[in-house]
Protein backbone atom coordinates (compact mmCIF):
# COMPACT_ATOMS: atom_id res chain seq x y z
CA UNK A 1 0.00 0.00 0.00
CA UNK A 2 1.20 3.43 -0.88
CA UNK A 3 -0.13 6.94 -0.68
CA UNK A 4 -1.44 8.73 -3.75
CA UNK A 5 0.07 12.19 -3.52
CA UNK A 6 -0.85 15.32 -5.45
CA UNK A 7 0.73 18.71 -5.03
CA UNK A 8 -1.47 21.24 -6.77
CA UNK A 9 -1.06 24.97 -7.35
CA UNK A 10 -3.79 27.13 -8.89
CA UNK A 11 -2.06 27.05 -12.25
CA UNK A 12 -0.85 23.48 -12.50
CA UNK A 13 -0.29 20.11 -10.89
CA UNK A 14 3.28 20.20 -9.61
CA UNK A 15 3.61 16.62 -8.48
CA UNK A 16 1.49 13.57 -8.80
CA UNK A 17 2.58 10.09 -7.85
CA UNK A 18 2.90 7.40 -5.22
CA UNK A 19 4.71 7.81 -1.95
CA UNK A 20 5.37 6.07 1.34
CA UNK A 21 5.30 9.16 3.49
CA UNK A 22 4.49 12.85 3.30
CA UNK A 23 5.77 15.38 5.81
CA UNK A 24 4.23 18.83 5.97
CA UNK A 25 4.00 21.74 8.34
CA UNK A 26 0.53 22.83 9.43
CA UNK A 27 -0.09 26.08 11.24
CA UNK A 28 0.08 24.06 14.48
CA UNK A 29 3.24 22.09 13.77
CA UNK A 30 4.84 19.40 11.68
CA UNK A 31 2.85 16.37 10.70
CA UNK A 32 3.67 13.23 8.77
CA UNK A 33 1.23 11.04 6.88
CA UNK A 34 1.64 7.38 6.12
CA UNK A 35 -0.78 4.85 4.73
CA UNK A 36 -3.85 4.31 6.83
CA UNK A 37 -3.83 7.80 8.26
CA UNK A 38 -7.20 8.98 9.52
CA UNK A 39 -9.07 11.47 7.33
CA UNK A 40 -7.50 14.85 7.92
CA UNK A 41 -7.89 18.42 6.77
CA UNK A 42 -5.32 20.97 7.79
CA UNK A 43 -4.12 24.40 6.90
CA UNK A 44 -0.43 24.69 6.05
CA UNK A 45 2.01 27.39 7.08
CA UNK A 46 5.17 28.45 5.35
CA UNK A 47 7.32 25.34 5.29
CA UNK A 48 8.86 22.52 3.39
CA UNK A 49 6.84 19.56 2.21
CA UNK A 50 8.71 16.31 1.83
CA UNK A 51 7.31 13.52 -0.26
CA UNK A 52 9.15 10.23 0.23
CA UNK A 53 8.42 8.29 -2.92
CA UNK A 54 8.05 4.54 -3.12
CA UNK A 55 11.53 4.36 -4.66
CA UNK A 56 12.94 5.96 -1.54
CA UNK A 57 13.75 9.33 -3.07
CA UNK A 58 12.73 12.56 -1.42
CA UNK A 59 10.84 15.14 -3.40
CA UNK A 60 11.00 18.43 -1.56
CA UNK A 61 8.94 21.50 -2.20
CA UNK A 62 8.64 24.94 -0.68
CA UNK A 63 5.00 25.52 0.20
CA UNK A 64 3.97 29.01 1.20
CA UNK A 65 0.68 28.40 2.93
CA UNK A 66 -2.04 26.14 1.66
CA UNK A 67 -4.16 23.19 2.66
CA UNK A 68 -3.77 19.49 2.98
CA UNK A 69 -6.46 16.86 2.81
CA UNK A 70 -6.02 13.18 3.53
CA UNK A 71 -8.65 10.55 2.73
CA UNK A 72 -8.38 6.89 1.80
CA UNK A 73 -4.62 7.03 1.39
CA UNK A 74 -4.89 10.04 -0.87
CA UNK A 75 -2.92 13.10 0.12
CA UNK A 76 -3.80 16.34 -1.63
CA UNK A 77 -1.79 19.47 -1.00
CA UNK A 78 -3.24 22.71 -2.31
CA UNK A 79 -1.08 25.77 -2.29
CA UNK A 80 -1.17 29.27 -3.78
CA UNK A 81 2.56 29.36 -4.10
CA UNK A 82 4.50 26.15 -4.17
CA UNK A 83 7.80 25.35 -5.81
CA UNK A 84 9.60 22.09 -6.25
CA UNK A 85 13.17 22.33 -5.05
CA UNK A 86 14.50 21.85 -8.57
CA UNK A 87 12.54 24.85 -9.77
CA UNK A 88 13.93 27.28 -7.22
CA UNK A 89 16.49 29.69 -8.58
CA UNK A 90 19.07 29.62 -5.78
CA UNK A 91 20.91 32.82 -6.65
CA UNK A 92 17.71 34.75 -7.07
CA UNK A 93 16.36 33.40 -3.80
CA UNK A 94 19.52 34.37 -1.97
CA UNK A 95 19.49 37.87 -3.41
CA UNK A 96 15.84 38.32 -2.40
CA UNK A 97 16.64 37.17 1.12
CA UNK A 98 19.55 39.58 1.45
CA UNK A 99 17.39 42.42 0.25
CA UNK A 100 14.62 41.60 2.68
CA UNK A 101 17.09 41.24 5.52
CA UNK A 102 18.51 44.66 4.83
CA UNK A 103 15.25 46.56 4.87
CA UNK A 104 13.89 44.49 7.68
CA UNK A 105 10.77 45.77 9.36
CA UNK A 106 9.84 43.68 12.35
CA UNK A 107 6.44 45.27 12.88
CA UNK A 108 5.19 44.45 9.44
CA UNK A 109 3.51 41.04 9.33
CA UNK A 110 3.62 40.93 5.55
CA UNK A 111 7.34 41.62 5.45
CA UNK A 112 7.80 38.97 8.10
CA UNK A 113 6.03 36.38 5.95
CA UNK A 114 8.03 37.40 2.91
CA UNK A 115 11.19 36.96 4.92
CA UNK A 116 10.12 33.51 6.09
CA UNK A 117 9.36 32.52 2.52
CA UNK A 118 12.70 33.76 1.27
CA UNK A 119 14.47 31.88 4.06
CA UNK A 120 12.66 28.68 3.22
CA UNK A 121 13.57 29.00 -0.44
CA UNK A 122 17.24 29.52 0.28
CA UNK A 123 17.27 26.72 2.82
CA UNK A 124 15.79 24.24 0.36
CA UNK A 125 17.85 25.42 -2.58
CA UNK A 126 21.04 24.90 -0.57
CA UNK A 127 20.39 21.26 0.19
Amino acid at each position, binding site marked *: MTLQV*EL*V*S*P*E*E*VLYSGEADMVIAR*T*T*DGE*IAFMTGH*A*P*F*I*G*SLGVGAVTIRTSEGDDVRAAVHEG*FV*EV*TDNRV*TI*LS*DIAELVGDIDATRARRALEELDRERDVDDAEAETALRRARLRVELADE
Partner: protein
Amino acid sequence: MAGGQEKVLKRRVKSIQSTKKITRAMELIAATRVVKAQQRALAARPYAEQITEVIQHLSAAGAGKEHPLLRQADSVDKVAFVVITSDRGLAGAYNTSVIRAAERDLQGAQSEGADYSLVLIGKKAAGYFNFRNYRIDAQFTGMSDTPAFEHAKEVAGVITEAFLEGDVDQVRLVYTRFLSVASQRVVVRRFMPLQAVPSQESDGPSADYEFEPAPGEIFDRLLPRYVEARLLAAMLDAAASEHAARQRAMKSATDNAEELETKLSRAMNRARQDSITSEIMEIVGGAEAMSHS
Protein backbone atom coordinates in the same frame (compact mmCIF):
# COMPACT_ATOMS: atom_id res chain seq x y z
CA MET B 1 -6.28 56.72 -70.04
CA ALA B 2 -6.43 52.94 -69.64
CA GLY B 3 -2.79 52.52 -68.56
CA GLY B 4 -3.47 54.82 -65.60
CA GLN B 5 -6.23 52.60 -64.33
CA GLU B 6 -4.00 49.61 -64.53
CA LYS B 7 -1.47 51.32 -62.30
CA VAL B 8 -4.12 52.20 -59.72
CA LEU B 9 -5.35 48.62 -59.62
CA LYS B 10 -1.85 47.27 -59.33
CA ARG B 11 -1.23 49.42 -56.29
CA ARG B 12 -4.43 48.20 -54.64
CA VAL B 13 -3.57 44.58 -55.28
CA LYS B 14 -0.16 45.12 -53.68
CA SER B 15 -1.65 46.70 -50.58
CA ILE B 16 -4.19 43.92 -50.23
CA GLN B 17 -1.47 41.34 -50.53
CA SER B 18 0.51 42.86 -47.69
CA THR B 19 -2.60 43.16 -45.52
CA LYS B 20 -3.29 39.52 -46.21
CA LYS B 21 0.18 38.61 -45.04
CA ILE B 22 -0.43 40.37 -41.74
CA THR B 23 -3.85 38.86 -41.12
CA ARG B 24 -2.57 35.41 -41.99
CA ALA B 25 0.28 35.79 -39.51
CA MET B 26 -2.12 36.98 -36.82
CA GLU B 27 -4.39 34.04 -37.54
CA LEU B 28 -1.55 31.58 -37.06
CA ILE B 29 -0.37 33.25 -33.87
CA ALA B 30 -3.89 33.23 -32.45
CA ALA B 31 -4.23 29.56 -33.33
CA THR B 32 -1.19 28.56 -31.28
CA ARG B 33 -2.31 30.78 -28.42
CA VAL B 34 -5.73 29.14 -28.31
CA VAL B 35 -4.03 25.81 -27.75
CA LYS B 36 -1.82 27.25 -25.02
CA ALA B 37 -4.70 29.00 -23.31
CA GLN B 38 -6.74 25.79 -23.40
CA GLN B 39 -3.90 23.89 -21.79
CA ARG B 40 -3.63 26.48 -19.05
CA ALA B 41 -7.36 26.30 -18.40
CA LEU B 42 -7.08 22.54 -18.19
CA ALA B 43 -4.06 22.66 -15.88
CA ALA B 44 -5.89 24.97 -13.50
CA ARG B 45 -8.83 22.63 -13.13
CA PRO B 46 -7.45 20.18 -10.51
CA TYR B 47 -6.94 22.96 -7.97
CA ALA B 48 -10.48 24.26 -8.38
CA GLU B 49 -11.90 20.75 -8.14
CA GLN B 50 -9.89 19.77 -5.10
CA ILE B 51 -10.64 22.96 -3.24
CA THR B 52 -14.35 22.47 -3.87
CA GLU B 53 -14.06 18.98 -2.47
CA VAL B 54 -12.31 20.18 0.68
CA ILE B 55 -14.99 22.81 1.20
CA GLN B 56 -17.68 20.18 0.87
CA HIS B 57 -16.01 18.02 3.49
CA LEU B 58 -15.63 20.98 5.79
CA SER B 59 -19.23 22.04 5.51
CA ALA B 60 -20.31 18.44 6.02
CA ALA B 61 -18.52 18.74 9.34
CA GLY B 62 -20.63 21.80 10.06
CA ALA B 63 -18.06 24.52 9.43
CA GLY B 64 -18.75 27.97 8.05
CA LYS B 65 -22.52 27.94 7.79
CA GLU B 66 -22.51 31.59 8.77
CA HIS B 67 -19.54 32.73 6.72
CA PRO B 68 -19.99 36.33 5.48
CA LEU B 69 -19.17 35.32 1.90
CA LEU B 70 -22.26 33.10 1.90
CA ARG B 71 -24.50 35.83 3.32
CA GLN B 72 -27.62 36.45 1.26
CA ALA B 73 -28.74 40.06 1.47
CA ASP B 74 -32.43 40.57 2.24
CA SER B 75 -32.72 43.04 -0.59
CA VAL B 76 -30.20 43.56 -3.37
CA ASP B 77 -29.45 47.29 -3.37
CA LYS B 78 -26.20 47.25 -5.28
CA VAL B 79 -24.84 44.80 -7.81
CA ALA B 80 -21.21 44.66 -8.84
CA PHE B 81 -20.39 43.54 -12.38
CA VAL B 82 -17.06 42.01 -13.17
CA VAL B 83 -16.63 42.29 -16.93
CA ILE B 84 -13.81 40.34 -18.57
CA THR B 85 -12.72 41.67 -21.98
CA SER B 86 -9.45 41.84 -23.87
CA ASP B 87 -6.84 44.57 -24.09
CA ARG B 88 -6.49 44.31 -27.84
CA GLY B 89 -9.09 44.43 -30.56
CA LEU B 90 -9.17 42.63 -33.91
CA ALA B 91 -11.07 39.80 -32.33
CA GLY B 92 -14.37 40.09 -34.14
CA ALA B 93 -17.40 40.46 -31.92
CA TYR B 94 -15.63 39.07 -28.84
CA ASN B 95 -15.55 42.28 -26.84
CA THR B 96 -18.78 43.80 -28.05
CA SER B 97 -20.80 40.73 -27.11
CA VAL B 98 -19.42 40.70 -23.58
CA ILE B 99 -19.92 44.43 -23.17
CA ARG B 100 -23.42 44.33 -24.57
CA ALA B 101 -24.42 41.48 -22.25
CA ALA B 102 -22.97 43.36 -19.29
CA GLU B 103 -24.73 46.59 -20.17
CA ARG B 104 -28.05 44.84 -20.67
CA ASP B 105 -27.78 43.11 -17.32
CA LEU B 106 -26.71 46.31 -15.67
CA GLN B 107 -29.71 48.17 -17.03
CA GLY B 108 -31.91 45.29 -15.92
CA ALA B 109 -30.57 45.64 -12.39
CA GLN B 110 -31.09 49.40 -12.54
CA SER B 111 -34.71 49.03 -13.60
CA GLU B 112 -35.22 46.88 -10.51
CA GLY B 113 -33.97 49.79 -8.48
CA ALA B 114 -30.50 48.51 -7.71
CA ASP B 115 -27.36 50.57 -7.95
CA TYR B 116 -24.38 49.24 -9.88
CA SER B 117 -20.64 49.00 -9.49
CA LEU B 118 -18.27 48.17 -12.32
CA VAL B 119 -15.08 46.16 -12.06
CA LEU B 120 -13.52 45.96 -15.50
CA ILE B 121 -10.82 43.70 -16.81
CA GLY B 122 -9.31 44.62 -20.18
CA LYS B 123 -8.87 47.91 -22.00
CA LYS B 124 -11.88 47.38 -24.24
CA ALA B 125 -14.45 47.35 -21.43
CA ALA B 126 -12.77 50.33 -19.79
CA GLY B 127 -12.89 52.28 -23.04
CA TYR B 128 -16.54 51.55 -23.65
CA PHE B 129 -17.90 52.28 -20.20
CA ASN B 130 -15.67 55.29 -19.77
CA PHE B 131 -16.91 56.82 -22.99
CA ARG B 132 -20.51 56.38 -21.90
CA ASN B 133 -19.86 57.98 -18.54
CA TYR B 134 -20.54 54.95 -16.42
CA ARG B 135 -19.07 55.00 -12.96
CA ILE B 136 -16.14 52.62 -12.88
CA ASP B 137 -14.96 51.39 -9.49
CA ALA B 138 -11.93 49.43 -10.55
CA GLN B 139 -10.22 48.57 -13.79
CA PHE B 140 -7.43 46.17 -14.58
CA THR B 141 -5.41 45.94 -17.74
CA GLY B 142 -2.55 43.81 -18.95
CA MET B 143 -3.88 40.55 -17.55
CA SER B 144 -6.60 39.24 -19.83
CA ASP B 145 -4.23 37.92 -22.47
CA THR B 146 -2.44 35.41 -20.23
CA PRO B 147 -4.06 35.53 -16.80
CA ALA B 148 -1.99 34.26 -13.88
CA PHE B 149 -3.05 33.42 -10.36
CA GLU B 150 -1.68 36.71 -9.01
CA HIS B 151 -4.00 38.57 -11.35
CA ALA B 152 -7.02 36.63 -10.17
CA LYS B 153 -5.94 37.30 -6.60
CA GLU B 154 -5.69 41.02 -7.22
CA VAL B 155 -9.17 41.26 -8.71
CA ALA B 156 -10.70 38.86 -6.19
CA GLY B 157 -9.30 41.01 -3.39
CA VAL B 158 -11.15 44.07 -4.65
CA ILE B 159 -14.46 42.25 -5.08
CA THR B 160 -14.27 40.36 -1.81
CA GLU B 161 -13.55 43.53 0.12
CA ALA B 162 -16.49 45.37 -1.44
CA PHE B 163 -18.75 42.44 -0.67
CA LEU B 164 -17.57 41.90 2.88
CA GLU B 165 -17.93 45.57 3.71
CA GLY B 166 -21.52 45.38 2.56
CA ASP B 167 -20.85 47.91 -0.17
CA VAL B 168 -22.34 45.53 -2.75
CA ASP B 169 -24.91 42.82 -2.12
CA GLN B 170 -24.25 40.72 -5.16
CA VAL B 171 -21.41 40.20 -7.60
CA ARG B 172 -22.03 39.04 -11.15
CA LEU B 173 -19.40 37.83 -13.52
CA VAL B 174 -19.72 38.58 -17.24
CA TYR B 175 -17.31 36.69 -19.45
CA THR B 176 -17.05 34.39 -22.43
CA ARG B 177 -17.14 30.68 -21.78
CA PHE B 178 -14.92 28.59 -23.96
CA LEU B 179 -16.89 25.59 -25.18
CA SER B 180 -14.70 24.63 -28.11
CA VAL B 181 -12.52 26.31 -30.69
CA ALA B 182 -15.61 26.81 -32.83
CA SER B 183 -18.01 27.93 -30.15
CA GLN B 184 -17.83 30.34 -27.23
CA ARG B 185 -20.71 31.79 -25.31
CA VAL B 186 -21.12 34.93 -23.23
CA VAL B 187 -22.45 34.14 -19.78
CA VAL B 188 -23.58 36.24 -16.84
CA ARG B 189 -22.99 34.36 -13.62
CA ARG B 190 -23.74 35.10 -10.02
CA PHE B 191 -20.39 35.03 -8.30
CA MET B 192 -21.21 36.25 -4.81
CA PRO B 193 -22.69 35.48 -2.40
CA LEU B 194 -21.22 32.05 -2.95
CA GLN B 195 -23.82 29.40 -3.40
CA ALA B 196 -23.90 27.30 -0.30
CA VAL B 197 -21.84 24.26 -1.26
CA PRO B 198 -24.12 21.24 -1.19
CA SER B 199 -23.09 19.15 1.77
CA GLN B 200 -23.28 15.47 1.09
CA GLU B 201 -25.08 13.98 4.05
CA SER B 202 -24.65 10.49 2.64
CA ASP B 203 -20.88 10.93 2.69
CA GLY B 204 -20.42 8.97 5.90
CA PRO B 205 -16.71 9.10 6.71
CA SER B 206 -16.49 12.89 6.31
CA ALA B 207 -17.73 13.27 9.86
CA ASP B 208 -14.62 11.49 11.11
CA TYR B 209 -12.16 14.05 9.83
CA GLU B 210 -9.46 15.36 12.05
CA PHE B 211 -8.91 19.09 11.71
CA GLU B 212 -5.92 21.20 12.40
CA PRO B 213 -6.66 23.98 13.27
CA ALA B 214 -10.43 24.06 13.95
CA PRO B 215 -12.74 23.55 10.92
CA GLY B 216 -14.10 27.10 11.10
CA GLU B 217 -10.63 28.54 10.99
CA ILE B 218 -9.62 26.44 7.99
CA PHE B 219 -12.86 27.42 6.29
CA ASP B 220 -12.11 31.12 6.76
CA ARG B 221 -8.77 30.70 5.07
CA LEU B 222 -10.07 28.39 2.38
CA LEU B 223 -12.99 30.41 1.09
CA PRO B 224 -10.96 33.35 -0.28
CA ARG B 225 -8.76 30.83 -2.15
CA TYR B 226 -11.91 29.28 -3.56
CA VAL B 227 -13.06 32.67 -4.83
CA GLU B 228 -9.67 33.25 -6.46
CA ALA B 229 -9.62 29.84 -8.09
CA ARG B 230 -13.07 30.35 -9.56
CA LEU B 231 -12.18 33.78 -10.86
CA LEU B 232 -8.98 32.45 -12.38
CA ALA B 233 -10.94 29.72 -14.13
CA ALA B 234 -13.24 32.36 -15.63
CA MET B 235 -10.31 34.49 -16.72
CA LEU B 236 -8.57 31.55 -18.36
CA ASP B 237 -11.77 30.63 -20.16
CA ALA B 238 -12.11 34.20 -21.38
CA ALA B 239 -8.50 34.24 -22.58
CA ALA B 240 -8.97 31.05 -24.59
CA SER B 241 -12.17 32.52 -26.06
CA GLU B 242 -10.38 35.75 -26.94
CA HIS B 243 -7.70 33.95 -28.91
CA ALA B 244 -10.26 31.73 -30.62
CA ALA B 245 -12.32 34.77 -31.59
CA ARG B 246 -9.24 36.50 -32.93
CA GLN B 247 -8.27 33.47 -34.91
CA ARG B 248 -11.71 33.35 -36.48
CA ALA B 249 -11.76 37.09 -37.22
CA MET B 250 -8.32 36.96 -38.81
CA LYS B 251 -9.22 33.91 -40.84
CA SER B 252 -12.21 35.64 -42.39
CA ALA B 253 -10.09 38.74 -42.99
CA THR B 254 -7.56 36.62 -44.83
CA ASP B 255 -10.28 34.94 -46.86
CA ASN B 256 -11.72 38.33 -47.72
CA ALA B 257 -8.35 39.63 -48.80
CA GLU B 258 -7.89 36.61 -51.02
CA GLU B 259 -11.22 37.14 -52.70
CA LEU B 260 -10.54 40.83 -53.27
CA GLU B 261 -7.12 40.01 -54.61
CA THR B 262 -8.46 37.66 -57.32
CA LYS B 263 -11.19 40.11 -58.24
CA LEU B 264 -8.85 43.04 -58.52
CA SER B 265 -6.11 41.24 -60.37
CA ARG B 266 -8.70 40.10 -62.86
CA ALA B 267 -9.83 43.69 -63.36
CA MET B 268 -6.22 44.75 -63.61
CA ASN B 269 -5.45 42.19 -66.30
CA ARG B 270 -8.49 43.22 -68.24
CA ALA B 271 -7.45 46.87 -68.03
CA ARG B 272 -3.99 46.00 -69.28
CA GLN B 273 -5.39 43.91 -72.13
CA ASP B 274 -7.72 46.77 -73.05
CA SER B 275 -4.92 49.25 -73.26
CA ILE B 276 -2.81 46.89 -75.39
CA THR B 277 -5.74 46.23 -77.72
CA SER B 278 -6.44 49.90 -78.23
CA GLU B 279 -2.75 50.56 -78.83
CA ILE B 280 -2.69 47.86 -81.55
CA MET B 281 -5.81 49.33 -83.06
CA GLU B 282 -4.16 52.73 -83.20
CA ILE B 283 -1.04 51.33 -84.85
CA VAL B 284 -3.05 49.29 -87.36
CA GLY B 285 -5.26 52.27 -88.08
CA GLY B 286 -2.20 54.48 -88.54
CA ALA B 287 -0.52 52.01 -90.88
CA GLU B 288 -3.67 51.62 -92.90
CA ALA B 289 -3.96 55.37 -93.34
CA MET B 290 -0.32 55.57 -94.47
CA SER B 291 -0.66 52.79 -97.09
CA HIS B 292 -3.70 54.41 -98.61
CA SER B 293 -2.09 57.73 -99.18
